[in-house]
Protein backbone atom coordinates (compact mmCIF):
# COMPACT_ATOMS: atom_id res chain seq x y z
CA UNK A 1 0.00 0.00 0.00
CA UNK A 2 3.00 2.20 0.51
CA UNK A 3 3.67 1.93 -3.17
CA UNK A 4 0.17 3.08 -4.06
CA UNK A 5 0.50 6.05 -1.74
CA UNK A 6 3.89 6.94 -3.20
CA UNK A 7 2.50 6.79 -6.75
CA UNK A 8 -0.51 8.90 -5.79
CA UNK A 9 1.67 11.46 -4.09
CA UNK A 10 3.89 11.72 -7.15
CA UNK A 11 1.19 11.17 -9.71
CA UNK A 12 2.13 14.15 -11.91
CA UNK A 13 5.66 12.88 -12.23
CA UNK A 14 4.47 9.32 -12.84
CA UNK A 15 2.18 10.56 -15.59
CA UNK A 16 4.90 12.72 -17.14
CA UNK A 17 7.40 9.89 -17.19
CA UNK A 18 4.78 7.45 -18.52
CA UNK A 19 4.09 9.90 -21.32
CA UNK A 20 7.81 10.17 -22.07
CA UNK A 21 8.06 6.41 -22.03
CA UNK A 22 5.17 6.05 -24.46
CA UNK A 23 6.75 8.62 -26.69
CA UNK A 24 10.05 6.73 -26.83
CA UNK A 25 8.34 3.42 -27.51
CA UNK A 26 5.86 4.88 -30.00
CA UNK A 27 8.40 6.68 -32.15
CA UNK A 28 10.86 3.83 -32.16
CA UNK A 29 8.12 1.35 -33.10
CA UNK A 30 6.95 3.54 -35.96
CA UNK A 31 10.51 3.88 -37.26
CA UNK A 32 11.08 0.15 -36.88
CA UNK A 33 7.90 -0.55 -38.85
CA UNK A 34 8.89 1.92 -41.58
CA UNK A 35 12.22 0.14 -41.96
CA UNK A 36 11.35 -3.41 -40.95
CA UNK A 37 8.21 -4.04 -43.01
CA UNK A 38 9.74 -3.02 -46.36
CA UNK A 39 12.89 -4.98 -45.47
CA UNK A 40 10.80 -8.02 -44.59
CA UNK A 41 8.91 -7.72 -47.88
CA UNK A 42 12.19 -7.38 -49.74
CA UNK A 43 13.80 -10.48 -48.24
CA UNK A 44 10.62 -12.51 -48.74
CA UNK A 45 10.90 -11.79 -52.47
CA UNK A 46 14.68 -11.78 -52.89
CA UNK A 47 15.93 -14.91 -51.19
CA UNK A 48 19.60 -13.96 -51.42
CA UNK A 49 19.07 -10.98 -49.09
CA UNK A 50 17.21 -12.92 -46.45
CA UNK A 51 20.20 -14.47 -44.68
CA UNK A 52 22.34 -11.33 -44.34
CA UNK A 53 19.39 -9.14 -43.28
CA UNK A 54 18.07 -11.59 -40.70
CA UNK A 55 21.61 -12.24 -39.44
CA UNK A 56 22.18 -8.49 -39.09
CA UNK A 57 18.97 -8.02 -37.14
CA UNK A 58 19.87 -11.00 -34.97
CA UNK A 59 23.31 -9.60 -34.18
CA UNK A 60 21.80 -6.27 -33.15
CA UNK A 61 19.50 -8.17 -30.83
CA UNK A 62 22.47 -9.80 -29.09
CA UNK A 63 24.15 -6.50 -28.20
CA UNK A 64 23.46 -5.77 -24.53
CA UNK A 65 21.27 -2.69 -24.36
CA UNK A 66 23.50 -0.73 -21.99
CA UNK A 67 26.46 -1.37 -24.27
CA UNK A 68 24.49 -0.21 -27.32
CA UNK A 69 23.52 3.01 -25.58
CA UNK A 70 27.18 3.47 -24.70
CA UNK A 71 28.38 2.81 -28.26
CA UNK A 72 25.97 5.36 -29.70
CA UNK A 73 26.78 8.09 -27.20
CA UNK A 74 29.78 9.58 -29.11
CA UNK A 75 27.92 9.70 -32.46
CA UNK A 76 27.73 13.44 -33.38
CA UNK A 77 24.11 14.47 -33.96
CA UNK A 78 22.64 11.53 -32.11
CA UNK A 79 24.66 11.88 -28.96
CA UNK A 80 23.53 15.51 -28.59
CA UNK A 81 20.19 14.47 -27.21
CA UNK A 82 19.57 11.39 -25.15
CA UNK A 83 16.06 10.81 -26.50
CA UNK A 84 17.30 10.63 -30.11
CA UNK A 85 19.80 8.07 -29.05
CA UNK A 86 17.27 6.08 -27.09
CA UNK A 87 14.83 6.08 -30.01
CA UNK A 88 17.54 4.84 -32.36
CA UNK A 89 18.57 2.05 -30.02
CA UNK A 90 14.96 0.99 -29.43
CA UNK A 91 14.32 1.07 -33.19
CA UNK A 92 17.25 -1.25 -33.77
CA UNK A 93 15.97 -3.71 -31.18
CA UNK A 94 12.45 -3.63 -32.57
CA UNK A 95 13.65 -4.46 -36.08
CA UNK A 96 14.18 -8.19 -35.64
CA UNK A 97 10.65 -9.23 -34.65
CA UNK A 98 9.12 -6.96 -37.28
CA UNK A 99 11.40 -8.05 -40.12
CA UNK A 100 11.11 -11.70 -39.19
CA UNK A 101 7.33 -11.69 -38.91
CA UNK A 102 6.87 -9.76 -42.14
CA UNK A 103 9.11 -12.30 -43.84
CA UNK A 104 7.29 -15.26 -42.26
CA UNK A 105 3.87 -13.78 -43.03
CA UNK A 106 4.58 -13.20 -46.69
CA UNK A 107 6.38 -16.51 -47.08
CA UNK A 108 3.33 -18.17 -45.53
CA UNK A 109 0.95 -17.09 -48.29
CA UNK A 110 -0.28 -20.18 -50.14
CA UNK A 111 1.82 -20.56 -53.33
CA UNK A 112 -1.32 -21.65 -55.22
CA UNK A 113 -2.95 -18.30 -54.41
CA UNK A 114 0.09 -16.45 -55.73
CA UNK A 115 0.27 -18.58 -58.84
CA UNK A 116 -3.43 -18.02 -59.53
CA UNK A 117 -3.03 -14.29 -58.98
CA UNK A 118 -0.03 -14.07 -61.22
CA UNK A 119 -1.72 -16.20 -63.86
CA UNK A 120 -4.76 -13.91 -63.78
CA UNK A 121 -2.54 -11.01 -64.71
CA UNK A 122 -2.02 -9.20 -61.41
CA UNK A 123 1.12 -7.07 -61.45
CA UNK A 124 3.70 -7.67 -58.74
CA UNK A 125 2.55 -4.60 -56.82
CA UNK A 126 -1.12 -5.62 -57.10
CA UNK A 127 -0.12 -9.02 -55.76
CA UNK A 128 1.72 -7.39 -52.87
CA UNK A 129 -0.96 -4.90 -51.85
CA UNK A 130 -4.08 -6.89 -52.66
CA UNK A 131 -2.96 -10.39 -51.78
CA UNK A 132 0.27 -10.78 -49.86
CA UNK A 133 -0.05 -7.93 -47.37
CA UNK A 134 -3.75 -8.46 -46.55
CA UNK A 135 -3.03 -12.14 -45.97
CA UNK A 136 -0.01 -11.55 -43.75
CA UNK A 137 -1.16 -8.46 -41.86
CA UNK A 138 -1.99 -10.39 -38.68
CA UNK A 139 1.40 -12.11 -38.64
CA UNK A 140 3.14 -8.76 -39.20
CA UNK A 141 1.12 -7.20 -36.38
CA UNK A 142 2.06 -9.98 -34.00
CA UNK A 143 5.69 -9.06 -34.74
CA UNK A 144 4.90 -5.44 -33.95
CA UNK A 145 3.27 -6.60 -30.74
CA UNK A 146 6.39 -8.47 -29.65
CA UNK A 147 8.50 -5.45 -30.60
CA UNK A 148 6.35 -3.09 -28.52
CA UNK A 149 6.42 -5.31 -25.46
CA UNK A 150 10.20 -5.63 -25.71
CA UNK A 151 10.54 -1.87 -26.23
CA UNK A 152 8.50 -0.97 -23.17
CA UNK A 153 10.90 -3.02 -21.08
CA UNK A 154 14.05 -1.81 -22.81
CA UNK A 155 13.02 1.83 -22.68
CA UNK A 156 13.41 1.76 -18.91
CA UNK A 157 17.16 1.38 -19.47
CA UNK A 158 17.17 4.54 -21.58
CA UNK A 159 16.97 6.47 -18.32
CA UNK A 160 20.58 5.42 -17.71
CA UNK A 161 21.67 7.81 -20.46
CA UNK A 162 19.23 10.49 -19.38
CA UNK A 163 16.52 9.89 -21.96
CA UNK A 164 13.82 9.91 -19.31
CA UNK A 165 10.88 7.55 -19.15
CA UNK A 166 9.79 5.32 -16.32
CA UNK A 167 13.34 4.05 -15.90
CA UNK A 168 14.02 7.26 -13.97
CA UNK A 169 12.06 5.88 -11.04
CA UNK A 170 13.74 2.53 -11.31
CA UNK A 171 17.28 3.90 -11.31
CA UNK A 172 16.41 6.39 -8.60
CA UNK A 173 14.88 3.64 -6.49
CA UNK A 174 17.95 1.46 -6.99
CA UNK A 175 20.20 4.29 -5.83
CA UNK A 176 17.96 5.01 -2.85
CA UNK A 177 17.47 1.31 -2.10
CA UNK A 178 13.75 2.08 -1.98
CA UNK A 179 11.44 -0.52 -3.45
CA UNK A 180 8.51 1.89 -3.52
CA UNK A 181 10.33 4.13 -5.95
CA UNK A 182 11.41 1.19 -8.11
CA UNK A 183 7.83 -0.06 -8.26
CA UNK A 184 6.53 3.41 -9.09
CA UNK A 185 8.45 2.96 -12.35
CA UNK A 186 8.05 -0.78 -12.82
CA UNK A 187 4.29 -1.03 -12.29
CA UNK A 188 3.27 1.62 -14.84
CA UNK A 189 5.78 0.08 -17.28
CA UNK A 190 4.19 -3.34 -16.82
CA UNK A 191 0.72 -1.84 -17.24
CA UNK A 192 1.86 -0.12 -20.44
CA UNK A 193 3.26 -3.36 -21.81
CA UNK A 194 0.08 -5.27 -21.00
CA UNK A 195 -2.15 -2.59 -22.46
CA UNK A 196 -0.14 -2.44 -25.68
CA UNK A 197 -0.15 -6.21 -25.90
CA UNK A 198 -3.93 -6.38 -25.51
CA UNK A 199 -4.62 -3.52 -27.90
CA UNK A 200 -2.43 -4.85 -30.71
CA UNK A 201 -3.69 -8.38 -30.05
CA UNK A 202 -7.23 -7.14 -30.52
CA UNK A 203 -6.28 -5.40 -33.77
CA UNK A 204 -4.49 -8.54 -34.93
CA UNK A 205 -7.66 -10.57 -34.46
CA UNK A 206 -9.79 -8.00 -36.24
CA UNK A 207 -7.50 -7.99 -39.25
CA UNK A 208 -6.93 -11.74 -39.47
CA UNK A 209 -8.27 -12.98 -42.80
CA UNK A 210 -11.16 -15.33 -42.18
Amino acid at each position, binding site marked *: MNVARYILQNHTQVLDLTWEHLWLVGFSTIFAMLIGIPLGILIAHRARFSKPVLAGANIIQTIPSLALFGFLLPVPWLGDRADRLAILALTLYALLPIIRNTYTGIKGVDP*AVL*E*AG*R*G*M*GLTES*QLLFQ*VELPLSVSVILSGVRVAVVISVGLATIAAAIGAGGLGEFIFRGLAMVDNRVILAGAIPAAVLALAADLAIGWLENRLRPS
Partner: protein
Amino acid sequence: MARLSLAEPRFANPSVLLDTQRNFERLAISGILGAMPAAANNAPAIEFRNVSYDAGGREILASLNLEIARGETLILLGRSGSGKTTTLKLVNRLLEPSSGEILVNGVSNDVDIIHLRRGMGYVIQDVGLFPHLNVERNIGLVPKIEGWSAERIRARVQEMLQLVGLAPDIASRYPHQLSGGQRQRVGVARALAANPAILLMDEPFGALDPLTRDELQREFSALQRRLRKTVVFVTHDLREALRLGTRIALMESGKLISVASPADFLRSADPLVSAYVRAFGDGLESALDRSNYDRGTS
Protein backbone atom coordinates in the same frame (compact mmCIF):
# COMPACT_ATOMS: atom_id res chain seq x y z
CA MET B 1 9.08 -5.01 -81.78
CA ALA B 2 10.76 -6.16 -84.96
CA ARG B 3 9.78 -9.67 -84.05
CA LEU B 4 6.21 -8.61 -83.61
CA SER B 5 5.83 -7.29 -87.12
CA LEU B 6 7.65 -10.31 -88.47
CA ALA B 7 5.21 -12.59 -86.77
CA GLU B 8 2.24 -10.81 -88.23
CA PRO B 9 3.17 -9.00 -91.43
CA ARG B 10 -0.30 -7.57 -91.92
CA PHE B 11 0.18 -5.30 -88.95
CA ALA B 12 3.26 -3.25 -89.60
CA ASN B 13 2.62 -1.06 -86.59
CA PRO B 14 2.42 -3.04 -83.34
CA SER B 15 0.16 -0.52 -81.64
CA VAL B 16 -2.47 -1.06 -84.32
CA LEU B 17 -2.43 -4.71 -83.44
CA LEU B 18 -2.80 -4.07 -79.73
CA ASP B 19 -5.71 -1.74 -80.40
CA THR B 20 -7.38 -4.38 -82.49
CA GLN B 21 -6.97 -6.88 -79.67
CA ARG B 22 -8.45 -4.47 -77.16
CA ASN B 23 -11.37 -3.82 -79.44
CA PHE B 24 -12.04 -7.49 -79.68
CA GLU B 25 -11.97 -7.76 -75.95
CA ARG B 26 -14.42 -4.93 -75.60
CA LEU B 27 -16.65 -6.63 -78.13
CA ALA B 28 -16.32 -9.92 -76.35
CA ILE B 29 -17.14 -8.41 -73.00
CA SER B 30 -20.18 -6.55 -74.19
CA GLY B 31 -21.38 -9.40 -76.36
CA ILE B 32 -23.25 -12.45 -75.25
CA LEU B 33 -21.19 -15.31 -73.99
CA GLY B 34 -21.83 -17.71 -76.79
CA ALA B 35 -20.76 -15.34 -79.49
CA MET B 36 -16.99 -15.25 -79.60
CA PRO B 37 -15.39 -12.43 -81.53
CA ALA B 38 -14.25 -13.28 -85.02
CA ALA B 39 -10.61 -14.22 -85.28
CA ALA B 40 -8.26 -11.34 -85.91
CA ASN B 41 -6.41 -13.46 -88.43
CA ASN B 42 -6.09 -17.04 -89.45
CA ALA B 43 -3.23 -17.79 -87.10
CA PRO B 44 -3.76 -20.58 -84.58
CA ALA B 45 -4.77 -19.44 -81.10
CA ILE B 46 -1.51 -20.75 -79.66
CA GLU B 47 1.56 -21.92 -81.49
CA PHE B 48 4.76 -23.39 -80.08
CA ARG B 49 7.74 -23.01 -82.39
CA ASN B 50 10.70 -25.11 -81.41
CA VAL B 51 10.26 -24.31 -77.74
CA SER B 52 12.66 -25.68 -75.14
CA TYR B 53 12.74 -25.11 -71.43
CA ASP B 54 15.64 -25.89 -69.13
CA ALA B 55 15.72 -25.58 -65.37
CA GLY B 56 18.96 -25.88 -63.50
CA GLY B 57 20.73 -27.43 -66.47
CA ARG B 58 18.05 -30.09 -66.84
CA GLU B 59 15.97 -30.11 -69.95
CA ILE B 60 12.30 -30.12 -68.99
CA LEU B 61 10.94 -29.52 -72.48
CA ALA B 62 12.75 -30.29 -75.73
CA SER B 63 12.00 -28.46 -78.99
CA LEU B 64 8.24 -28.53 -78.81
CA ASN B 65 6.24 -27.74 -81.93
CA LEU B 66 2.51 -27.58 -81.49
CA GLU B 67 -0.40 -25.63 -82.89
CA ILE B 68 -3.63 -25.17 -80.97
CA ALA B 69 -6.59 -24.08 -83.05
CA ARG B 70 -9.21 -21.59 -81.95
CA GLY B 71 -12.11 -23.13 -80.11
CA GLU B 72 -10.55 -26.54 -79.60
CA THR B 73 -9.92 -28.30 -76.32
CA LEU B 74 -6.40 -29.58 -76.45
CA ILE B 75 -5.49 -32.03 -73.73
CA LEU B 76 -1.91 -32.24 -72.57
CA LEU B 77 -1.70 -35.79 -71.31
CA GLY B 78 1.21 -37.46 -69.62
CA ARG B 79 2.62 -38.81 -66.40
CA SER B 80 4.01 -36.57 -63.65
CA GLY B 81 7.17 -34.80 -64.77
CA SER B 82 6.45 -35.24 -68.46
CA GLY B 83 6.48 -31.48 -69.02
CA LYS B 84 2.77 -30.85 -69.51
CA THR B 85 2.39 -28.25 -66.75
CA THR B 86 5.57 -26.57 -67.96
CA THR B 87 4.05 -26.38 -71.42
CA LEU B 88 0.93 -24.77 -70.01
CA LYS B 89 2.84 -22.21 -67.97
CA LEU B 90 4.86 -21.20 -70.99
CA VAL B 91 1.66 -20.04 -72.64
CA ASN B 92 0.89 -17.39 -70.02
CA ARG B 93 4.56 -16.76 -69.34
CA LEU B 94 4.61 -17.98 -65.78
CA LEU B 95 7.72 -19.63 -67.21
CA GLU B 96 10.08 -18.18 -69.80
CA PRO B 97 11.20 -20.49 -72.60
CA SER B 98 14.95 -21.11 -72.87
CA SER B 99 14.67 -21.05 -76.62
CA GLY B 100 12.01 -20.97 -79.29
CA GLU B 101 8.95 -18.86 -79.57
CA ILE B 102 5.33 -19.06 -78.46
CA LEU B 103 2.78 -17.19 -80.51
CA VAL B 104 -0.66 -16.27 -79.25
CA ASN B 105 -3.03 -15.28 -82.04
CA GLY B 106 -0.01 -15.06 -84.28
CA VAL B 107 1.85 -12.66 -82.03
CA SER B 108 4.83 -13.51 -79.87
CA ASN B 109 3.62 -13.73 -76.29
CA ASP B 110 6.44 -11.71 -74.73
CA VAL B 111 5.01 -8.29 -75.63
CA ASP B 112 2.88 -7.29 -72.67
CA ILE B 113 2.73 -10.16 -70.21
CA ILE B 114 0.13 -8.63 -67.89
CA HIS B 115 -2.20 -7.86 -70.79
CA LEU B 116 -1.59 -11.32 -72.20
CA ARG B 117 -2.49 -13.01 -68.91
CA ARG B 118 -5.66 -10.98 -68.46
CA GLY B 119 -6.78 -12.31 -71.81
CA MET B 120 -6.42 -15.90 -70.60
CA GLY B 121 -8.33 -17.69 -67.88
CA TYR B 122 -6.15 -19.79 -65.60
CA VAL B 123 -7.51 -22.62 -63.45
CA ILE B 124 -5.28 -24.79 -61.29
CA GLN B 125 -5.81 -27.90 -59.20
CA ASP B 126 -5.45 -26.07 -55.88
CA VAL B 127 -7.84 -23.41 -57.23
CA GLY B 128 -5.96 -20.62 -55.47
CA LEU B 129 -9.01 -18.59 -54.49
CA PHE B 130 -8.03 -15.53 -52.48
CA PRO B 131 -8.92 -16.55 -48.92
CA HIS B 132 -9.46 -12.95 -47.74
CA LEU B 133 -11.97 -12.11 -50.46
CA ASN B 134 -15.50 -13.42 -50.75
CA VAL B 135 -16.70 -15.24 -53.85
CA GLU B 136 -18.00 -12.08 -55.49
CA ARG B 137 -14.73 -10.24 -55.07
CA ASN B 138 -12.73 -13.29 -56.16
CA ILE B 139 -14.67 -13.52 -59.39
CA GLY B 140 -14.74 -9.77 -59.89
CA LEU B 141 -11.06 -9.10 -59.24
CA VAL B 142 -9.76 -8.96 -62.79
CA PRO B 143 -12.78 -6.99 -64.08
CA LYS B 144 -12.23 -4.57 -61.20
CA ILE B 145 -8.56 -4.14 -62.03
CA GLU B 146 -9.57 -3.65 -65.64
CA GLY B 147 -11.75 -0.76 -64.47
CA TRP B 148 -15.26 -2.13 -64.90
CA SER B 149 -18.03 -0.30 -63.06
CA ALA B 150 -19.30 -1.84 -59.82
CA GLU B 151 -22.71 -2.36 -61.40
CA ARG B 152 -21.30 -4.23 -64.34
CA ILE B 153 -19.06 -6.37 -62.12
CA ARG B 154 -22.01 -7.37 -59.93
CA ALA B 155 -24.05 -8.37 -62.96
CA ARG B 156 -21.11 -10.27 -64.41
CA VAL B 157 -20.51 -12.15 -61.15
CA GLN B 158 -24.14 -13.28 -61.04
CA GLU B 159 -23.95 -14.32 -64.68
CA MET B 160 -20.79 -16.34 -64.00
CA LEU B 161 -22.25 -18.01 -60.91
CA GLN B 162 -25.24 -19.10 -62.92
CA LEU B 163 -22.99 -20.30 -65.71
CA VAL B 164 -21.05 -22.63 -63.42
CA GLY B 165 -24.17 -23.83 -61.61
CA LEU B 166 -23.85 -22.00 -58.30
CA ALA B 167 -26.65 -20.31 -56.36
CA PRO B 168 -26.57 -16.48 -56.37
CA ASP B 169 -26.35 -16.27 -52.58
CA ILE B 170 -22.95 -17.95 -52.62
CA ALA B 171 -21.47 -14.62 -53.76
CA SER B 172 -21.09 -13.37 -50.20
CA ARG B 173 -19.38 -16.50 -48.87
CA TYR B 174 -15.68 -16.91 -48.27
CA PRO B 175 -13.61 -19.69 -49.87
CA HIS B 176 -13.20 -21.61 -46.60
CA GLN B 177 -16.99 -21.87 -46.36
CA LEU B 178 -17.23 -23.75 -49.67
CA SER B 179 -16.89 -27.42 -50.57
CA GLY B 180 -14.11 -28.56 -52.89
CA GLY B 181 -16.45 -28.77 -55.85
CA GLN B 182 -17.92 -25.33 -55.19
CA ARG B 183 -14.44 -23.89 -54.90
CA GLN B 184 -13.42 -25.33 -58.23
CA ARG B 185 -16.59 -23.96 -59.82
CA VAL B 186 -15.76 -20.53 -58.44
CA GLY B 187 -12.26 -20.99 -59.86
CA VAL B 188 -13.72 -21.61 -63.30
CA ALA B 189 -16.11 -18.67 -62.91
CA ARG B 190 -13.21 -16.43 -61.93
CA ALA B 191 -11.18 -17.53 -64.94
CA LEU B 192 -14.09 -16.77 -67.25
CA ALA B 193 -15.07 -13.45 -65.67
CA ALA B 194 -13.20 -11.13 -68.00
CA ASN B 195 -14.32 -13.27 -70.95
CA PRO B 196 -10.94 -14.50 -72.13
CA ALA B 197 -10.70 -16.30 -75.46
CA ILE B 198 -8.21 -18.79 -74.05
CA LEU B 199 -8.58 -20.94 -70.97
CA LEU B 200 -5.61 -22.69 -69.39
CA MET B 201 -6.50 -25.48 -67.00
CA ASP B 202 -3.97 -27.44 -64.93
CA GLU B 203 -5.59 -30.62 -63.58
CA PRO B 204 -8.57 -28.57 -62.45
CA PHE B 205 -10.62 -31.55 -61.33
CA GLY B 206 -7.75 -33.66 -60.03
CA ALA B 207 -8.35 -33.10 -56.33
CA LEU B 208 -12.10 -33.76 -56.38
CA ASP B 209 -13.96 -36.90 -55.33
CA PRO B 210 -15.08 -39.09 -58.26
CA LEU B 211 -18.74 -38.03 -58.13
CA THR B 212 -18.00 -34.31 -58.07
CA ARG B 213 -15.36 -34.78 -60.73
CA ASP B 214 -17.83 -36.54 -62.99
CA GLU B 215 -20.34 -33.76 -62.46
CA LEU B 216 -17.83 -31.04 -63.21
CA GLN B 217 -16.50 -32.83 -66.28
CA ARG B 218 -20.01 -33.13 -67.66
CA GLU B 219 -20.79 -29.49 -66.95
CA PHE B 220 -17.47 -28.31 -68.31
CA SER B 221 -18.12 -30.23 -71.50
CA ALA B 222 -21.54 -28.60 -71.84
CA LEU B 223 -20.10 -25.19 -71.05
CA GLN B 224 -17.36 -25.56 -73.62
CA ARG B 225 -19.95 -26.49 -76.23
CA ARG B 226 -21.60 -23.12 -75.63
CA LEU B 227 -18.53 -20.95 -75.12
CA ARG B 228 -16.12 -22.42 -77.68
CA LYS B 229 -13.09 -21.11 -75.87
CA THR B 230 -9.64 -22.25 -76.83
CA VAL B 231 -8.86 -24.58 -73.94
CA VAL B 232 -5.53 -26.11 -73.01
CA PHE B 233 -6.21 -28.75 -70.39
CA VAL B 234 -3.53 -30.62 -68.45
CA THR B 235 -4.33 -34.02 -67.01
CA HIS B 236 -2.81 -37.44 -66.45
CA ASP B 237 -6.21 -39.09 -66.56
CA LEU B 238 -6.83 -40.68 -69.95
CA ARG B 239 -10.55 -41.04 -69.30
CA GLU B 240 -10.83 -37.33 -68.63
CA ALA B 241 -8.80 -36.65 -71.76
CA LEU B 242 -11.04 -38.82 -73.92
CA ARG B 243 -14.14 -37.26 -72.49
CA LEU B 244 -13.21 -33.60 -72.76
CA GLY B 245 -10.64 -33.28 -75.52
CA THR B 246 -11.01 -32.52 -79.18
CA ARG B 247 -7.36 -33.51 -79.51
CA ILE B 248 -5.00 -35.23 -77.13
CA ALA B 249 -1.28 -34.48 -77.00
CA LEU B 250 0.70 -37.14 -75.21
CA MET B 251 3.93 -36.01 -73.56
CA GLU B 252 6.75 -38.10 -72.16
CA SER B 253 10.00 -36.83 -70.59
CA GLY B 254 9.73 -33.39 -72.11
CA LYS B 255 8.84 -34.55 -75.60
CA LEU B 256 5.61 -34.46 -77.51
CA ILE B 257 4.91 -38.05 -78.53
CA SER B 258 1.72 -37.75 -80.51
CA VAL B 259 -1.25 -35.50 -81.12
CA ALA B 260 -4.48 -37.20 -82.12
CA SER B 261 -8.22 -37.05 -81.79
CA PRO B 262 -9.59 -39.17 -78.93
CA ALA B 263 -10.76 -41.93 -81.26
CA ASP B 264 -7.44 -42.05 -83.13
CA PHE B 265 -5.57 -41.91 -79.86
CA LEU B 266 -7.16 -45.18 -78.75
CA ARG B 267 -6.27 -46.85 -82.05
CA SER B 268 -2.73 -45.49 -82.24
CA ALA B 269 0.06 -47.93 -82.95
CA ASP B 270 2.67 -45.75 -81.26
CA PRO B 271 4.24 -47.86 -78.50
CA LEU B 272 4.16 -45.07 -75.90
CA VAL B 273 0.54 -44.19 -76.70
CA SER B 274 -0.61 -47.77 -76.59
CA ALA B 275 1.30 -48.27 -73.33
CA TYR B 276 -0.60 -45.34 -71.85
CA VAL B 277 -3.87 -46.70 -73.18
CA ARG B 278 -3.12 -50.18 -71.79
CA ALA B 279 -2.31 -48.71 -68.39
CA PHE B 280 -5.89 -47.52 -68.15
CA GLY B 281 -7.25 -50.96 -68.92
CA ASP B 282 -10.49 -51.85 -70.62
CA GLY B 283 -13.63 -49.87 -71.08
CA LEU B 284 -12.03 -46.73 -72.46
CA GLU B 285 -14.53 -46.67 -75.28
CA SER B 286 -17.13 -45.89 -72.67
CA ALA B 287 -15.28 -42.66 -71.91
CA LEU B 288 -15.53 -41.81 -75.58
CA ASP B 289 -19.22 -42.69 -75.56
CA ARG B 290 -19.62 -40.44 -72.59
CA SER B 291 -17.97 -37.64 -74.46
CA ASN B 292 -20.48 -38.12 -77.26
CA TYR B 293 -23.26 -38.30 -74.72
CA ASP B 294 -22.07 -35.06 -73.08
CA ARG B 295 -22.11 -33.43 -76.45
CA GLY B 296 -25.56 -34.78 -77.18
CA THR B 297 -24.48 -36.56 -80.34
CA SER B 298 -25.08 -40.18 -79.37
